[in-house]
Structure formats: structure tokens, C-alpha cells
């Protein structure tokens, strides 16, 4: 590779000399030594910048691309030759030079073209830059001079049907499509990339602005001198020299930008020091500073779950290849440790990324353990909530089954007995009459008990009408006078059920232990919480973790991410407050 690069230097010099001579010898009055030399200088700028970039970043395709564009710009001049073979071959290939320049710009700085529209544009560019000249060669009429060619005739070896008018029109179509449509698309995509770039990327992408300006100049130049009736010579001179300046500056700017993207080695040393002091949460910030990418994210690998999570344990999806964000995987002894999600422009710095990653490995390992713990905690929390929801569902099912099954059958059976009793009338055995009546009474008692049981398991009114109605119903069955103030909104079922059972248990305690003369129940929403509060004017002295059943309810409330407090000073009444998150 090194030998090839060294061989390309004399090749570029020799080709430059040839290109210079060919222009002067063939174009006559259409050029001057200064203009011919300027065109060679542009090509040399590309070759030179390309070879330097290639040498400094062997892994980056941008260097070879720039060098190829430079050689194509040199070879392009050979189309001016009056030799039919040289003319045909290099006229056919001439426009590819601009496709290569555009490709280099779009591949800047990583050497890969990022984004689907960009890739499509590159392909369409190459195809049209090749097909239009070929088509022109098929119908080229030596007697009708083409634009930018001197009036002397050349011969196309590909000629199949001489048609000068068609050739001229094809050239116009070429200019409209390539320098009108494609160049606009190119400028749009380049500017869009600049606008969308992260702050770090935008600094590096600054040369793209130059590229947009240069291509705009070239497009204006092509269009003016294809379509203007009598283009002004002054305008030609201005546009020509501005283009030369722009096209010389472009490869140098791309090279400079690419080299500047290389990060300060000192960053790694600072990172090591900073990580020693930084808490695990500060890890991301430290890496972001060291690598100069404020948008950087750290994803930690959890082996037993086989997924990446962020520092708080939430799963992270790594971005796909080819986007503006790229992933660098950090491994230790063949096992993944973490992934750094960062700006694609950092890919040019694989050694720096690896060095930073290695420096951060201990800290990452630490952060990973913490993330693992948080992920497990979150999972436990979710599983508690699921258990509560499942238990509620089970209670609702039992309530339905009791009503629709056992209770229904008992009533039906009692009714059968009652009907039998009626049919027998008073005429038969009084003993039998008594037995039947007692059976019906027993069944009636069983039905009542089942109804109370079902209500205790899960009151139907809670499912059907919600918390406020269920609390009203509860208060009307409580022997102590109870004032209820509840919001009528429907809430998630497990929230309603939890609040209801808190009120139920608290009111049961009021009746059993407090000796209170009155109680109030409030259930109101405050700051995304349902606050259920039961207060009495009794003797107080209750404990949340006594055998009151409140302990189990506290677990239930906490399972939903809330908390339950009992305030019960001796002689000062009791206040039970449950706060249950109910985001809706």
C-alpha cells in the first residue's frame, strides 16, 4: 500500500504535465496556460490531500476516494485530444470525476456514505455521469461542436447514427439532470446533514458547507454556459476562478477536518483520573467529555438477561448500523462488558475509543453491577404488582363464582324445599313440616353467609360502580357513623381494590378497637396519587405492624409503589393514610 502511494505521486505529476499539454495543444483559443494550469492544480490538490489522508488513516476509504477523484480530474483532460481513441475513452469517462468528488464529500469523514438517500444519490450520480456521455458518443456529429470543445472535429469510435441536434440536446438534458436535479439534491442532503448534526459532529462537518458552495458554483457555471445565448466572458472568468479556488480548497478542508476529528490523546489520561473520582452515574458524563460527544450513551451488558440496560437498569435498544449513531462494543476476555452508543464520526478513532473503554472498564463493571441490581429490583417491583393484580382478579372470579354458582344453587334448592312444603300443606306430619321449614331457614342462613363472604372477598359494587360507590356502601354497613368523601373517577382496578381494602380494614379496626363515635373516609387524587384516608376520634394507640391486618395491606400498597402510614397517638384518635400512584 505504501509503495502504491509512493508510486502515485510521480504518476500524478506526469499525468498533470500531460493534461496541461493536451489542453494547450488541442483547445487553442478556448484556454490559456493559466487556466490549464489551474485545472491541473485542482486535480493535484485532490491527489495530494487524498494520499495524505490515506497515509494517516489507512483504514478510511476517504483518502483513496479523494485521490481517485484527483486522478479522474487529470484523466478528464485527455478527452480534448484529437486522437479518436483517447477522445472516445476519456469523453465517456470524463464526468465520473465529479461523481467521485461528490462521493468523497458524502463519504466524509468516515469514508462510508451514511444514509439511504445519500447512497441512492451516489449510485444515480455514477450511473448518469457515465450513461449520458456514452449516449452522446453514439450520435456525436463531428460537424456540430459540443459545448466546451473547440470547433475542430473529433471522431467518436462508438458512433452509430450521426445526429448533431440529438447530441446537443442530450448534453442539455445531461446538464439539467445532473447539474440541476442531482446537484440540488446533493446540496440539500449536505446542508441537511449539517443542520441535523450533533454539536461535536457539526464542528467536524464544517467542510461540507464549502462543498455545498463549490457544487452550487459549478452548477451555475454549467447551466449558464449551456443555456445562455451569449454568455459574458467576464462572468465566465469570475465563475471559473472562483471554482478553481473552491475546488482547491475543498480536498484540503476535507483532509484538515478529518485529521482534526482525531481526538487529543490527553483525553484518555484525564478520563482515567476522572473515573477514579466519579460515581457510577458520572461515568457517562466523563466518557462524553473525554470523547467530545455530549450525546454519548453507555449501555451495560447483563449476561444473565442477555440484554443491554442503562445505568438505572432499563433495557436499551442499540441503534442499527449505518445511522448517525454508532455502537462500539467493549469486551473483556471475550465477554461483552458494555456498549458505547456514540456519534458515527467517532468511528475514525477506534484506538481512542478502545483506550477510553479500557480506562473505563473497571468503572463500567461497577456500573454494570449496580444496573443489574436496579434491573432486578425493578423486576421484583413489577412482579409484586403483577401478583397483586392476579390476586385481585382471582378474588373477583371467586366473588362471581360464589354468586353465580353456590349461592344460586342454594337459593334454588331452598325454593324446591319451600315448594314441597307448600304442596304438602298443613295436612301432613307436623314433624316433616318443621324439618322442611328448618332446612329452608338453614339454607337461607347459608346464602346470607355466602353473600357476606363474597362481599368480603371482593364486593361486586367495587367492580361495577367503582371506589366511591363501594365506600358509600361500606359506610352504610358500618355500625359507627361514617362520613365519606370520595372522588367518583374510575381508577385502575388494583388501585381501587387496594384503596377499598385499606378503608375496609381501617373501618373494621375503628369498630373493633377504637371506641370511636364517628369516622371519616376520604379518597381523593393528589399529584398523581390516590390518597385514601380513614380517620376516627377513638382511643388511638394503633400500630401499622401490629396484628391489625394493616401490615398485609401496607405490603399491598407498597407493591403498587405507594405507602401506608398509621398515625395513632394514644388518646388522639387514629389516622390511616394510604398513598397509591394512579397515573392516568
Amino acid at each position, binding site marked *: 500500500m505504501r509503495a502504491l502511494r509512493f508510486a502515485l505521486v510521480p504518476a500524478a505529476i506526469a499525468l498533470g504535465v500531460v493534461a496541461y499539454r493536451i489542453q494547450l495543444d488541442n483547445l487553442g483559443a478556448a484556454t490559456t496556460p493559466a487556466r490549464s494550469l489551474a485545472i491541473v492544480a485542482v486535480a493535484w490538490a485532490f491527489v495530494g490531500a487524498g494520499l495524505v489522508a490515506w497515509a494517516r488513516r489507512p483504514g478510511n476509504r476517504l483518502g483513496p476516494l479523494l485521490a481517485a477523484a484527483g486522478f479522474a480530474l487529470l484523466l478528464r483532460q485527455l478527452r480534448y485530444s484529437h486522437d479518436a481513441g483517447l477522445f472516445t475513452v476519456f469523453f465517456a469517462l470524463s464526468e465520473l470525476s465529479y461523481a467521485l468528488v461528490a462521493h468523497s464529500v458524502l463519504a466524509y469523514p468516515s469514508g462510508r456514505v451514511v444514509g439511504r438517500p445519500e447512497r441512492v444519490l451516489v449510485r444515480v450520480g455514477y450511473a448518469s455521469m457515465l450513461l449520458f456521455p456514452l449516449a452522446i458518443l453514439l450520435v456525436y456529429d463531428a460537424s456540430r461542436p459540443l459545448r466546451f470543445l473547440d470547433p475542430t472535429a473529433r471522431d467518436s469510435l462508438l458512433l452509430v447514427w450521426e445526429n448533431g441536434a440529438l447530441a446537443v440536446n442530450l448534453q442539455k438534458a445531461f446538464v439539467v439532470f445532473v447539474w440541476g436535479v442531482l446537484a440540488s439534491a446533493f446540496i440539500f442532503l449536505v446542508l441537511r446533514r449539517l443542520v441535523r448534526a450533533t454539536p461535536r459532529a457539526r464542528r467536524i462537518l464544517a467542510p461540507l458547507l464549502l462543498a455545498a458552495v463549490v457544487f452550487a458554483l459549478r452548477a451555475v457555471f454549467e447551466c449558464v454556459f449551456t443555456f445562455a445565448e451569449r454568455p459574458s466572458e467576464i462572468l465566465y472568468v469570475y465563475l471559473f476562478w472562483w471554482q478553481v479556488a473552491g475546488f482547491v480548497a475543498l480536498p484540503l478542508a476535507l483532509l484538515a477536518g478529518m485529521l482534526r476529528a482525531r481526538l487529543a490523546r490527553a483525553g484518555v489520561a484525564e478520563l482515567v483520573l476522572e473515573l477514579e473520582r466519579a460515581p457510577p452515574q458520572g461515568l457517562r458524563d466523563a466518557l462524553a467529555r473525554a470523547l467530545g460527544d455530549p450525546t454519548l450513551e453507555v449501555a451495560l451488558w447483563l449476561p444473565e438477561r442477555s440484554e443491554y440496560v442503562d445505568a438505572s437498569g432499563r433495557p436499551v435498544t442499540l441503534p442499527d448500523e449505518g445511522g448517525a449513531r454508532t455502537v462500539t462494543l467493549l469486551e473483556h476476555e471475550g465477554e461483552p462488558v458494555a456498549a458505547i452508543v456514540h456519534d458515527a464520526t467517532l468511528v475514525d478513532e477506534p484506538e481512542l475509543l478502545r483506550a477510553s473503554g479500557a480506562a473505563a472498564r473497571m468503572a463500567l463493571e461497577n456500573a454494570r453491577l449496580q444496573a443489574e441490581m436496579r434491573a432486578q429490583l425493578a423486576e421484583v417491583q413489577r412482579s409484586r404488582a403483577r401478583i397483586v393484580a392476579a390476586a385481585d382478579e382471582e378474588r373477583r372470579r371467586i366473588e362471581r363464582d360464589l354468586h353465580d354458582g353456590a349461592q*344460586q344453587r342454594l337459593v*334454588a334448592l331452598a*325454593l324446591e324445599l319451600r315448594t314441597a312444603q*307448600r304442596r304438602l300443606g298443613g295436612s301432613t306430619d307436623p314433624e316433616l313440616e318443621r324439618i322442611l321449614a328448618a332446612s329452608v331457614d338453614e339454607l337461607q342462613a347459608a346464602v346470607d353467609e355466602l353473600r357476606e363472604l363474597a362481599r368480603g372477598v371482593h364486593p361486586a*359494587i367495587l367492580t361495577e360502580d367503582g371506589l366511591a360507590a363501594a365506600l358509600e356502601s361500606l359506610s352504610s354497613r358500618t355500625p359507627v357513623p361514617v362520613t365519606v368523601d370520595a372522588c367518583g373517577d374510575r381508577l385502575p382496578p388494583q388501585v381501587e381494590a387496594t384503596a377499598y381494602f385499606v378503608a375496609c380494614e381501617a373501618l373494621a379496626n375503628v369498630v373493633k378497637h377504637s371506641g370511636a363515635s364517628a369516622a371519616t373516609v376520604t379518597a381523593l387524587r393528589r399529584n398523581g396519587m390516590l390518597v385514601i384516608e380513614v380517620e376516627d376520634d377513638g382511643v388511638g394507640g394503633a400500630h401499622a405492624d401490629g396484628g391489625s391486618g394493616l401490615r398485609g395491606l401496607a405490603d399491598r400498597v407498597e407493591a403498587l409503589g405507594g405507602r401506608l402510614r398509621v398515625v395513632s397517638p394514644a388518646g388522639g384518635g387514629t389516622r390511616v393514610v394510604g398513598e397509591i400512584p394512579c397515573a392516568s
Partner: protein
Amino acid sequence: MRVVIAEDSVLLREGLARMLADEGFEIAAQVDNADALHHAVHREKPDVAIVDVRMPPTQTDEGARAAREIRAAHPEVGILLLSQVVEAKHALELFSEHPEGFGYLLKDRVLEIDDFLEAIRRVARGGTAIDPEVVAQLMGRRRTADPLAELSPREREVLALMAEGRSNQAICRKLFLSPKTVETHVHSIFLKLNLPPEADDHRRVLAVLAQLRSLEGG
């Protein structure tokens, strides 16, 4: 008297039909869902439809909804809703618009056959039948400045029976009192609750319910 029975439990439906047939009722139709109930009522124009609150497909309140629709379409058909649980809130909602010809009872009230038959007949006549459990819930709530507290125990019993929708004669039979005594109690209750005297049973229920509900609000 012709009745339609809507109840999805076969056992209970058959039992109810047999019992009512024994007591001289004509069973015009037996159905197990709300749609069939609509058709049966439309076709048979019964005196009373006895309707289970919970029926397929959702087993929640199909019966109650069907009852509301039937009352809008056929106001002359009495409706007696049966439920496994009764809630004062539901009763107040159900009776708020048209208490005439409407009843809402716990399912196991069918076991007290005489009371149950009387409730059916009352509903068929355009009267009201409210479950004692509902009345107990309404009267049982203790309130500050409770006018019910001024009633004697006997008067509270009479008030409860009035609230269920019973007539004076029915109250006499239930409490083994003479018509004269019951009338005295009723008069005294209306005085203490500050209600205008009502001759008509239906309007009397309404007044009592309204009073209980207003106490609810206060």
C-alpha cells in the same frame, strides 16, 4: 296473573316457575337472556316480568338495563328485578324516575313465598317493592341531626315497611296491628319527618324515598 321469568340459572328458573304455577300464576314465558326477554315481553305483554340483574353475556347488569328499556317501551308491564346483592345506590338510581310498577329484591326473598307473591301482585298493580336490606341501608346510616332518631322503634318498623312499598293493610298483617294503630303511626311519622300526608301508597313510597335520599345528601 301472567308473568315472564328471565333468569339464566335453569335450576332457579324452573323452581320459580313451578312455585308460581302452584300459586296460580300463568307462566307466559321463561327466558335466560336479555334479548329473549325483550321478545317475550313484546309478544306476551305480561302483567309482571321477573328479571335477574346478572345475565349473559357479561354477567354484570344486563337485567337492570333490559328493565329500563322495557319500562320505556311497555310502561304497563311491571318489573321485579332480582339480584344476589342489593345496593342502596342502585335502588335509588332504579327508582329515581318511575317507581311505579317496579320492584328490586334480593334473590332469596323468593323463599318467603307469601311476601314474595305479595310483592309481585303489588308491582303488577303499579306499586313498588323495595328490598328491606335497601331500606335498612338507607335508614341505618347515622347522621348528625337525624330526624329518624325522633321516631319510636315501632314507628321505625312502620317506616321501613312503608319504604318497601307496602300498603297499610299489608303493614297491619306484618306487624299484627289494627288498621287504626297503623294509621296513627303513619300519621305520626309523617308529622315527625315533616312530610305532607299522602293517601296513595305509591306516592307515599316516593315521599319516603325522597326523604331518605335527602337525608343521604345531608
